């Protein structure tokens, strides 16, 4: 624990930085080398070809547009919800409800929305049953349209909870006194937002923006499921190059993804450089929790129930689908039910139990490592200003900005050589990639809110390092740790590609066992699996919640 107390930021950050460089560095170098075909004659021809390819350019613009619209909408909606609802969302269960869509992997969520909104989906069918529309094609084309409406709807629906997760801690600890001051001085609601909230909220919003943007622009599952034939998003094209039958096309996949990576990382880096001074540390809060009140309670109740509906409607549809055998278009009720979906899933018996244990074990280990590496790193970033901070910040965020197929090759080669491929250790380590950046992000914000002053006082009173951590930081970091637990388990459980490649079939998590079933036409099977899949992170969350209760002295209230 000496480590934790040290005031040298480089030492605090070293484990996180080393892990990131080790995992990413070789991967990126390999990806670049592949893209210039170094094994034959190094050439930039692939890049030249890409830039003169009309389909590729269209696809890039299309992807950027979709990513931009989805991200902006998610952030705005998330901000509105958090601003109006934070007193309600402070409680555990409303919070869990707001986060709920996150436990479903993206493509499951997309699939649910497809069941609802496609031309022969439940809504269209219901309208037909009520006699409001005659034919399925009178229902508007929302999914698989060339503008990408379906993709955008799915992403917004799915990312708003993430925005809530990122922004909520900020609002929970905003000072009410400052707000009242603005009101007293005759300011309006906008002034409050601009002068009191913006300085704290804006940096978090910016980071959230990049995280979501980078994700949407490079994620494969949703556009592959809901996209139109033309134009296709960049990740879809890249995956086709990468996994396609023509192996000579692989350099194109690397080149496309490499370009995207450079573009995003560069923008993020520049943003860090320019906003460094603007980042305000919330000093130890002068506000207190209990005088939080919503600004407009009737309006916020409506909003809360809308959110509730938006969360539970797709889940309800999923449960229903898992039990329906046949439900003809335009019929108000299903004509026959089945337990086949559940049977198919539970028929796996021993494999199934093994997968649950493996998934639980891996996500708990990943969580532990995340906290061990993330806590010191977050503290280092929160309390210190040092040379090269922007570089370190960009580096630590970069694993989630870089699509996994870019680094997969390098990481796999490294792991084979280290002897941890085809083994759970390799899987645990590789799961750090998509999780650690979030952990550091969230914990850093937590530390910044607490401030350094309490530690200084504790030290002057003779407290030891462990004592400080346990009595000063831990209790106040609980909201952040809760978010970390949730995010890390959800992300770790949803990893398919990296787990399959590094685990190599030896490590059978839930994702490995059940992802193949997404190629079946049987909706009941897919739906049953999706429900079960989502229940695991919730179980982990409840488990950790229990542990936290035992571990923490008392919540300061």
């Amino acid at each position, binding site marked *: 624990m000496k480590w934790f107390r040290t005031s040298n930021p480089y030492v605090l950050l070293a484990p996180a930085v080393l892990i990131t460089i080790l995992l990413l560095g070789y991967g990126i170098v390999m990806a670049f080398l592949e893209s210039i075909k170094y094994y034959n004659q190094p050439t930039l021809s692939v890049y030249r070809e890409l830039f003169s390819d009309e389909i590729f350019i269209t696809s890039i613009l299309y992807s950027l547009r979709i990513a931009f619209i989805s991200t902006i909408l998610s952030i705005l909606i998330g901000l509105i919800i958090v601003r109006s609802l934070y007193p309600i969302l402070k409680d555990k269960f409303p919070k869990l409800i707001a986060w709920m869509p996150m436990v479903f992997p993206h493509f499951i969520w997309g699939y649910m929305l497809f069941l609802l909104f496609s031309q022969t989906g439940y809504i269209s069918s219901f309208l037909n049953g009520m006699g409001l529309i005659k034919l399925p094609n009178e229902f508007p084309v929302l999914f698989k349209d060339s503008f990408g409406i379906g993709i955008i709807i799915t992403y917004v629906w799915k990312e708003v909870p993430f925005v809530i997760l990122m922004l909520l801690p900020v609002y929970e600890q905003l000072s009410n006194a400052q707000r009242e001051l603005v009101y007293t001085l005759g300011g309006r609601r906008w002034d409050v937002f601009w002068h009191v909230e913006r300085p704290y909220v804006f940096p978090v919003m910016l980071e959230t923006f990049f995280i979501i943007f980078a994700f949407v622009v490079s994620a494969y599952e949703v556009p592959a499921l809901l996209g139109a*034939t*033309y134009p296709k998003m960049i990740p879809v094209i890249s995956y086709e190059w990468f996994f396609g039958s023509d*192996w000579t096309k692989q350099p194109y996949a690397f080149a496309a993804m490499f370009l995207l990576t450079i573009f995003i990382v560069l923008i993020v880096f520049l943003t860090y450089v320019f906003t460094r001074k603007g980042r305000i540390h919330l000093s130890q809060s002068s506000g207190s929790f209990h005088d939080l009140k919503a600004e407009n309670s009737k309006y916020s109740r409506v909003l809360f129930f809308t959110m509730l509906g938006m969360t539970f409607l797709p889940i309800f549809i999923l449960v229903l689908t898992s039990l329906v055998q046949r439900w003809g278009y335009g019929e108000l009720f299903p004509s026959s039910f089945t337990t086949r979906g559940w049977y198919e899933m539970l028929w796996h018996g021993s494999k199934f139990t093994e997968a649950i244990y493996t998934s639980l074990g891996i996500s708990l280990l990943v969580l532990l490592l995340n906290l061990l590496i993330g806590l010191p790193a977050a503290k280092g970033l929160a309390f210190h200003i040092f040379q090269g901070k922007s570089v370190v910040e960009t580096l630590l965020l970069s694993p989630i900005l870089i699509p996994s197929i870019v680094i997969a090759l390098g990481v796999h080669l490294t792991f084979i050589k280290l002897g941890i491929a*085809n083994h759970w250790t390799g899987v645990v380590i590789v799961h750090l990639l998509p999780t650690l950046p979030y952990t550091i992000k969230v914990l850093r914000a937590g530390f910044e809110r607490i401030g350094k002053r309490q530690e200084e006082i504790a030290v002057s009173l003779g407290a030891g390092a462990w004592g400080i951590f346990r009595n000063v930081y831990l209790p106040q970091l609980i909201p952040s740790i809760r978010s970390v637990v949730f995010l890390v388990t959800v992300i770790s459980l949803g990893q398919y590609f990296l787990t399959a490649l590094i685990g190599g079939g030896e490590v059978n998590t839930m994702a490995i066992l059940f992802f193949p079933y997404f190629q079946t036409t049987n909706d009941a099977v897919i739906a049953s699996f999706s429900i079960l899949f989502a229940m695991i992170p919730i179980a982990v969350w409840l488990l950790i919640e229990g542990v936290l209760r035992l571990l923490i002295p008392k919540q300061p209230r």
Partner: protein
Amino acid sequence: MKKMRLLVWIMLYLFVSACSPSTDAAKESKAILKKDWREIEETTKNKTVRMYMWGGDTGINRYMDDWVAPRLKKEYNIALKRVPMDAPEFLKKLSNEKRAGKDEGNMDIIWINGENFKNAKNNGLLFGPFVNKLPNYKKYVDAESLDIQYDFGTKTEGLEAPWGKVQFVYQYDEEKVPNPPQSFEELAQWVKENPGKFTYPDPADFTGNAFVRQLFYESSGNVKNILDNGYEEDFAQKNSVKMWDYLNEIKPYLWREGKTYPNNLTELDRLYSKGEVYMTMGYNEARAEKLMKQSVFPATTRSFVMKSGSLGNAHFLAIPFNSPNKEGAMTAINFMLSPEAQLTKLDSEFWGENMSLDPARLSAADQKKLQTIKRGESVLPAETLKKYLQPEIDSEYVAWLKENWVNEVVQNK
């Protein structure tokens, strides 16, 4: 700080030290191929065989887990572990292992064909040739037949053993389509009369590509022309004009006016199951049976083939170069080629897919058994299927059609 430095050194050491490749692997493989069959079977006792295969079909999975695995355990004491993974993914894993010089991997059997086989073969990822070691291959497989010598135009050369055969058929709803089309011409007619009720998957998909490929056969006059010519871009360009014209002609009458297409067969099947379209298609002449039983497809689903021909191909089992248990893999593959295993596979209860064995070589009792198996009402009679069967062409055409379809059809406004 010191500890940290030590850690870095250890990491670097591991990096460097693990790079030395071993040369014994090739020798060992040769030694295995020299053993006689009894010896091979003997050495497999008490070992695990890991089989990597596409896992998206519950019937196939059940066949492997509930029928094949227990019998392998009982008869050979082999523990068969099925790992669900798509072929491009496990081949990626395998080629990375090759690059990293890993001579002992963890995959023993892989299920592949077509382009995946070609890639695996060309990159030296396969062990063998081993098929002539297998007693059941020698006894029951017609090794001379073209669909076993060639896999999408690539010579198999004993590197993969045929596991099953499938043929491409169209499914339709009898209730909605009383007279299914018999040729592409009639199909075009039907599509125009029933706008929005037909579509085909994007040729980037396996099935969508097969649909376009059959049209390409017709467009170039005869499949023999293509086979004789091999892959040639000029040839493809010249002979595809008719095909693109046809596809563009029916485009406005397709589902969603041809503005978008199902991304894969799953999506097309879903459209069919919801009644959005009246026809679907796919390899495996008996594929509708299981889906009808699950009420995914309407009970009035039947199938047809075009008089101009229907594609058929075989799919195969192969052994990776770095399989840790090659003897076990061979024993397991041999078992899966036994008449008993193949006849069970044919049953629609499990898989419902055609045997890779030559029916004429089966024993009288097995032939009788074969005749009593009812494949279901939606499956065309064996004679009909055989009559219209056509071979696959070079897999380079698959890629060519995929790419050019985007330019010629999608972007053609």
